[in-house]
């Protein structure tokens, strides 16, 4: 299909800085200029280098917990985390040195010492950042063994109909907790306990369905492992291609990637560059798309004489000709104005346009209305009368504009 869109977007690690001022620095010998406030991690991506990372993702504020993204900066002691260190003019940064390699391997060795070794049968196989990073840092051995204290026996929570939470695979990167706070604003997740016992907890360490979770999927979206995972992907496996589209539920019009396996949807992922939603979504668009293949779908045209009659399944041609002849008959008997049409706010612009054209040009009257009648027709009237346009005045993003005028 020519509609294909990359399955995985580039992850810049930290959000874009909006500063108009720029700084120029050197990363691994390459000069790069970025807006002031840009993290070293993001600047590195701009310069063409992906610094290893697990807790950072560009939809969330930097957190600095995984310690894989450490770098060396000339003239500075230690190994600052590139996600939380802003780029400064004149900095000379190295993202790959033997010492950094050793450090990253050391951290990965710790991660894997408390992680199941079931990559091949894991639902995230092929789409797991932990797996990727183990490869990137060249982890070859876990000298701690696997007999130490661990969470491998933690039980998965499958209470949510759309995704599972498997704490045995959790690396406590806090991405889910932060997404629930920063992206969704529900604060349904936290970490319970501390130290080695730190565990992602829905509300009061409850099953997700009993918690404050509203199933928006933001946590699932940012999870770098198989800890929070769509059940559809667990069942069907990883998608093989992706098509950009727009959610058909509410008036926000979220951009989505339909992640496909052949002609089957396996996941709807909110599109990062969708301007209405910027990578976020709600339970409906994210998960409630199964109706499209529901057994209740009627796939053959049907006709009947009276509503007390059984339906007759017929060909498209028969059905359409029947409808047309009925309409013509009614118009002949009761006048041109005795029929009409209703367009749907659920259908596309093109479809709505055609239905109103059908009414005006083929029915030869203006008896066309839309279900917007029963919701927003006063908006159209009121704003039309006062401002001259029957529509909202701003972009959604406008709400994020600071208060001062």
């Amino acid at each position: 299909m020519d509609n294909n869109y990359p399955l995985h977007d580039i992850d810049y690690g930290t959000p874009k800085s909006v500063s108009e001022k720029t700084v120029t620095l050197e990363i691994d010998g390459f000069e790069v200029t970025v807006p002031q406030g840009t993290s070293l991690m993001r600047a590195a991506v701009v310069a063409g280098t992906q610094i290893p990372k697990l807790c950072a993702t560009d939809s969330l504020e930097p957190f600095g917990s995984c310690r894989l993204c450490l770098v060396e900066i000339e003239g500075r002691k230690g190994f600052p985390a590139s996600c939380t260190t802003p780029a400064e003019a004149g900095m000379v940064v190295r993202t790959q040195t033997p010492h950094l390699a050793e450090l990253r391997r050391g951290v990965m060795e710790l991660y894997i010492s408390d992680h199941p070794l079931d990559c091949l049968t894991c639902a995230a196989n092929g789409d797991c950042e932990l797996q990727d990073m183990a490869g990137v840092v060249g982890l070859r051995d876990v000298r701690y063994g696997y007999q130490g204290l661990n969470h491998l026996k933690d039980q998965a929570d499958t209470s949510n109909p759309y995704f599972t939470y498997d704490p045995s695979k959790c690396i406590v990167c806090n991405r889910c907790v932060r997404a629930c706070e920063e992206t969704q604003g529900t604060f349904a997740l936290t970490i319970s306990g501390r130290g080695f016992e730190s565990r992602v907890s829905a509300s009061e360490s409850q099953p997700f369905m009993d918690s404050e979770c509203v199933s928006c999927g933001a946590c699932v979206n940012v999870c770098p492992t198989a800890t929070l995972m769509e059940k559809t992907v667990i069942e069907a496996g990883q998608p093989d291609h992706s098509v950009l589209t727009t959610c058909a539920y509410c008036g926000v019009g979220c951009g989505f990637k339909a992640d496909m396996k052949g002609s089957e949807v396996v996941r709807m992922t909110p599109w990062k560059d969708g301007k209405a939603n910027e990578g976020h979504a709600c339970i409906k668009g994210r998960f409630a798309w199964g109706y499209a293949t529901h057994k209740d779908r009627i796939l053959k045209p049907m006709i009947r004489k009276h509503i007390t009659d059984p339906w007759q399944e017929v060909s498209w041609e028969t059905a359409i000709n029947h409808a047309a002849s009925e309409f013509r008959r009614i118009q002949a008997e009761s006048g041109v104005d005795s029929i009409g049409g209703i367009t749907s706010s659920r259908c596309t612009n093109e479809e709505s346009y055609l239905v109103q054209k059908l009414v005006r040009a083929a029915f030869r009257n203006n008896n066309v209305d839309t279900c917007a009648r029963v919701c927003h027709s006063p908006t159209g009237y009121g704003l039309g009368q006062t401002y001259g346009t029957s529509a909202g005045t701003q972009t959604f993003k406008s709400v994020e504009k600071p208060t001062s005028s």
Partner: protein
Amino acid sequence: MSVKIYVPRDSAALAVGADEVAQAIEQQATARGIAIDLVRNSSRGLLWLEPLVEVAVGGQRLAYGPVTPEAVESLFEAGFLTGKTHPLAVGPIEAHPYLKNQERLTFVRAGITDPLSLEDYQAHEGFAGLRAALALSPADIVQQILDSGLRGRGGAGFPAGIKWKTVLQTNADQKYVVVNADEGDSGTFADRMVMEGDPFMLIEGMIIAGIAVGATRGYVYIRSEYPDAIFVMEEAVRRATTGGFLGKNILGSGKAFHIVIRKAAGSYVCGEETALLESLEGKRGIVRAKPPLPAIVGLFGKPTVINNVLTLAAAPYILSHGPKVYADFGMGRSRGTLPFQLAGNIRHGGLVEKAFGVTARQLIEDFGGGTESGRPLRAVQIGGPLGAYLPDSLLDTPMDYEALAAKGGVLGHGGLVVFDDTVDMAEQARYAMEFCAIESCGKCTPCRIGSTRGEEVIQHIQAKPAEAGAHAKLLRDLCSTMVNGSLCAMGSMTPYPVLSALDHFPEDFNLTAETHKAA
């Protein structure tokens, strides 16, 4: 005229029966029909002598200690009220070499005054620093702190004046002064002694900082293990407010400052400044990534001076005596004095305030009198649970941030914990990892998982001598990951005691010279 008798109420005295002693003294006095004026002072820091009872006789304070309730009757019998001798007699306390040989700038009033008496405080130079500060511009106050060379006493040793300056120069509608009184290091108790023994000094230091940087609210974050300090500080804030030293109009200056005492809830990491701020905000006390610095984005997102108790407690002296007097003490970049705390297996445990530069050996032998057990000293842990264990051979190192660091040591909060030769250093190393595992906030991976693995690896070394070499290597690699990779000192310094034990006492780790070298 009634006789003035002093019985400390510092918790180190209370824990060994000071209240019972005070009660016994009152009973005896009543029974004998003697009028006494019993003052509950604080401790002077000669803790092996607590409860240390003092009697004011002829312009001197004569001390007896350690006094038990049972010994009180004999003290009366012996005529201690007129300074007569007794087996527990210590003599004129101020002449005691332990005290006489100190350089007390911060602990100048400790044990002398009634900690909660505003009159007593002011009679002993109290609030002189504040009055001096009120006559200065904020920038001038900050300059005096800079000139004094005062460095943060919490362990990191960052110049206090630079912090203050940053806060002063950051514009905000609200700024804060936060006192880090989460003194969780084993072997340290100087903060506690300041708060219990001279709380107005800390309050005065906070007000000075507030005026200097433009903050009107202050918080004191005190660990929940210090109930007495919390009680005394709360009472002191109440009294200082009533006395016009706190509130909307400090001493009629038109400047405002309010103090809230907050109790911690059992988290060592909350002694790290950003975790402390999280905790004050009512959150999980996990460490924030820096930048931004608390001086710019601190408590509730506002510019915040966050200093240790001893740091702020030094401010009144600097302001009242001038920065030069203070800076004249010390050595190198470590200016002024540090209240050292002698703890663990030591004969004369207590608080010794000395200028930087004194050696550990001087502290332990000259002041501390060697081990309490009388057995040979084997190791001293300096700077709390994240501090290195030093063997006897390194005890002549001067106590100065840089000089100690050069020897792999950490001055930290100035606590020295002495161990005799019965100590098992592998067990001490294991404990360091265990403590980290118990207290890790869980945010960063090297600390969260590394501490648990560290404990396991050391257990392995202890249990399987044959594999000690390979595991010692793994332990060193882990320590390197923790040192270089951790987000805060909890993870990055836990390896200090571990590695120092491994380096100086390999025999305790089942290592031979050969396997030790290989690891």
